């Protein structure tokens, strides 16, 4: 069973997705059963995988596709970091989405693609070579597009078209880079320290081109400036989708890809020698500041969160590009932390929109009195983002800062501090309005979703769960089971032994 396990992890959600497609709208119970069953099953399979990898077991599934090109699934510790995050958040998001989409049309289609999308993410995480990574990377584009345009409105279609244009072009660049590398050196199997064989004899010029193609390809999904244009318009998607895109699947896949390409394809030493890391770090820093600045100007909550995502995801890229073990730990752990915090914020935004019809920061006045639990979660997430100790965001930023010093690149600390200040500048007003301003006479579009609670439990519980998780990961970062510990394990075992 061992070698089939990675495939099984992917198939669980993929088959569930296909099965859900065939369901009729009214087959509500069956759809929920399939959704949750697959999510729980997947999470437990990932648990088995996690334990195995922790003990140093090797899992590897391969299927030859063409001569010298195979589909290879080989989960390493880094893969597990991403995989566990996605499996866990999928379960939570599924529950949330069931509550969120109650009574809306085309639910079978929605949940079908939702499951497929998570399969693609799992594939990206476990990809053992560049081709496999490319395959699942493109599949992710395909399966998320229907989710982005799910509402079918003119705005949604427009957002979807932009999303496609960006990601398909990114995929095309990645495709060329991948084929190029395969043509020159044969199969590119992810290897810590670089996949290029000794004495590959490639000129720096060629390597720079390839690095550019690969990184630009993943950079689109990572929303690296100037490739970030799709993300704010993709906001038209339903809240669970935004949550998934921002916290789990798409942008994370991009950031994860950056790490893979730097550390497992080029090898960090070569990447540094080519100057790739410097360029990347500068771009990441620019993105961090640019995203924050733009977020300041947004009144729409989801758009503000979207620009915040652009900014926050680049912490991961920055951590990876600083070239140093501690910075890398900071970047990797932010993959998880940002996921938890951002999903909290999106769930809150969804709750506000569904329950009160609140879409804008300016409408938040007194929301804390009407929906205290939701706003508590929002506050936790926002403060975490700002980097207030002992929340999760603080841990990431702390490691990044120390890492910058260790790498002798102290100037990044300036970026981090500035970014934190900007974070505070766009989050604190929202929190202030929610708690300290009086509520309006009527909410824009209030709906009674629950008689006893502030909103439907299906919406509330997942929100509280992820908020709690982001608190706990910060509080107990030092515990051996924390994401931080796992990130350190990755860095120690693989990249900076």
């Amino acid at each position, binding site marked *: 069973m061992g070698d089939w396990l990675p495939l099984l992890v992917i198939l669980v959600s993929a088959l569930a997705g296909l099965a859900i*497609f065939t369901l*009729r*709208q*009214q087959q509500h119970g069956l759809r929920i059963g399939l959704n949750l069953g697959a999510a729980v099953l997947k999470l437990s399979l990932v648990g088995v995988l996690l334990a195995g990898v922790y003990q140093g077991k090797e899992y590897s599934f391969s*299927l*030859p*596709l*063409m*001569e010298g*090109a195979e*589909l290879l699934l080989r989960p390493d510790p880094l893969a597990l970091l991403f995989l566990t995050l996605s499996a866990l958040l999928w379960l939570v998001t599924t529950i949330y989405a069931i509550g969120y989409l109650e009574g809306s*049309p*085309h639910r079978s*289609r929605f949940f079908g693609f939702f499951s497929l999308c998570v399969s693609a993410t799992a594939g990206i995480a476990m990809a053992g070579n560049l081709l496999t990574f*490319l*395959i699942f990377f*493109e*599949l992710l*584009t*395909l399966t998320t*597009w*229907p989710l982005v*345009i799910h*509402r*079918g*409105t003119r705005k949604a*279609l427009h957002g*979807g*078209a932009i999303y*496609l244009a960006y990601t*398909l*072009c990114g*995929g*095309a660049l990645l*495709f*060329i880079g991948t*084929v*190029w590398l*395969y*043509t020159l050196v044969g199969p590119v199997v992810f290897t810590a320290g670089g996949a290029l064989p000794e004495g590959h004899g490639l000129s720096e010029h060629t390597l720079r081109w390839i690095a550019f193609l690969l990184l630009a390809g993943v950079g689109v999904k990572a929303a690296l400036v100037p490739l970030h244009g799709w993300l704010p318009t993709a906001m038209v998607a339903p809240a669970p989708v935004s949550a998934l895109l921002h916290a789990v699947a798409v942008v994370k896949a991009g950031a994860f890809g950056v790490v893979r390409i730097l550390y497992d394809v080029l090898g960090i030493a070569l990447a540094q020698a080519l100057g790739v890391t410097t360029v990347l770090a500068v771009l990441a820093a620019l993105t961090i500041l640019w995203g924050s600045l733009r977020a300041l100007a947004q009144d729409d909550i989801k758009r503000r969160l979207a620009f915040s995502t652009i900014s926050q995801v680049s912490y991961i890229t920055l951590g990876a590009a600083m070239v140093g073990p501690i910075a890398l730990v900071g970047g990797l752990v932010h993959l998880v932390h940002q996921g938890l915090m951002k999903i909290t914020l999106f769930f809150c935004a969804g709750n506000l929109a569904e329950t009160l019809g609140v879409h804008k920061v300016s409408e938040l006045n007194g929301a804390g009195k009407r929906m205290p639990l939701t706003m508590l979660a929002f506050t936790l997430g926002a403060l975490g983002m700002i980097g207030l100790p002992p929340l999760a965001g603080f841990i990431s930023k702390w490691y990044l800062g120390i890492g910058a010093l260790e790498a002798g690149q102290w100037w990044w600390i300036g970026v981090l501090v500035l970014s934190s200040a900007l974070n505070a500048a766009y989050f604190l007003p929202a929190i202030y309005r929610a708690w300290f301003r009086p509520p309006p006479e009527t909410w824009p579009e209030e709906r009674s979703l629950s008689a006893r609670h502030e909103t439907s439990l299906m919406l509330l519980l997942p929100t509280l769960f992820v908020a709690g998780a982001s608190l706990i990961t910060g509080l107990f970062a030092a515990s051996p089971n924390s994401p931080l510990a796992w990130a350190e394990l990755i860095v120690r075992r693989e990249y900076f032994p």
Partner: protein
Amino acid sequence: MNPADLLVWLVLLPVLLAALLFVAPEGWRTRLGQLGTLLCASLALLLAWQVLQHGPISVALGNWQPPLGIRLHADGLSALMLALTALVALPLAAHAPAWFVRHEAAQSRAGAFFWPLWMFQWAALNLLFLAGDLFNAYVGLELSGLAAVALVALGGQRAALEAALRYLLLALFGSMLYLLGVALLYGAGGVLDLTLLGAQLEADHASRAALLLITLGLLIKTALLPFHFWLPAAHANAPAPVSAILSGLVVKASFVLLLRIWFEIFHPIGLGGAGEVLGALGIAAIIWGSLQAMRQERIKLLVAWSTVAQLGYLFLIFALAVELAWAGSVLHALSHGLAKAALFLAAGNIVLALGHDQIHRLHGAAGKLPLTFFTVALAGVSLMGLPPSGGFAAKWLMLQAAIDLGRWPYVVAIIGGSLLAAGYLFPLLRHALAGTHDPRQREGERLLSRWLEFPPLLLATLALLLGLMALLPMSLLSGGMPVSLR
């Protein structure tokens, strides 16, 4: 059965079936046709299996060896194309009768005549894939061309007949050029057998003129830009099952013949820049076909123009004349055959169910026909060359070849073509997914029967699976690689 006999059966059985289907009362034809399809398809797959196991198979008809006699030859390429035809034919046999019953605009007896005509077409395709003799291939081309025109005319409306007439005139003209080329080759070499001709031909005036004429003739039939103008009308106005046959299979037959003639006869004597011209035309076709497809307002015209674009990919091999590109080209022919057949059948279903084929009126159609639009999406994935489809594998190989040769314009064209394909396929899906829920639409109501919806889905799935099982066709193909490419 002797494996060599299979080759003969593969041509004669569909011929015999065509005659039987013509004689049989109209009420019997569907059952007989389906039975015949099953038989022919099994023979084709059996032959592919034999070739995979034992390598190429040759048979001299009447035991008269070439140069006097006629040879049929099944190598990896033939086996793959035969198998493709069989794999398209099987779902089609389920879909076509259901389609003709439902479609009122088609001629009343179109369903009855579809079977004998399609069997003739199948015989011609098999013959062309197996032909080892230039003149025999001419007869095959005429058989295929006439059957194709008659199939288009089954559409019945004026537009279909006009397209059929134009198709007929151009197909005949193409055959004439081909025959003229063959005449010159016979004058130069005194033989008609492909292999023998390849072994003895010299680069003189006659052989160059012959190459030019044969290539032009076959290009017209394959509809490479700038000879594509007949294709969109013919493919778009034909009945949907016929469009699937024409776009998926028929244009490939003349392409395969061109491939053989080019690489087995002429490549050894050197072609100069001629291959470059074909490659450049291929690029032009990709761009122009895609741009036209984007402008179309009718779904079947869009799909037909997509064929023009996708055929362009096939011709890149002539400029990137290496083994990898050859494999990529053939793989592309296979995956396009499956995907395009699926797409045309699905398009036909959409027209049947909605009563129109206007793209901008498709709003919300995906909700009514989820399975059909899922098929469109799956087939689209293969046409766009997105993983893990057959189209992806094909583009992978072609890209490898282009990069290996340092031919960057081709790299850009191959990838750009994918993006352009996305540019015309996604809007189709977007329109279908757009729009809010229509309360009048009863949930779960079936607008189309299973016989209509599942065959295209099967084809699209096969196109997708081809990407995961690309090694199988590749290993078949390695047995039939032209010597000049090895």
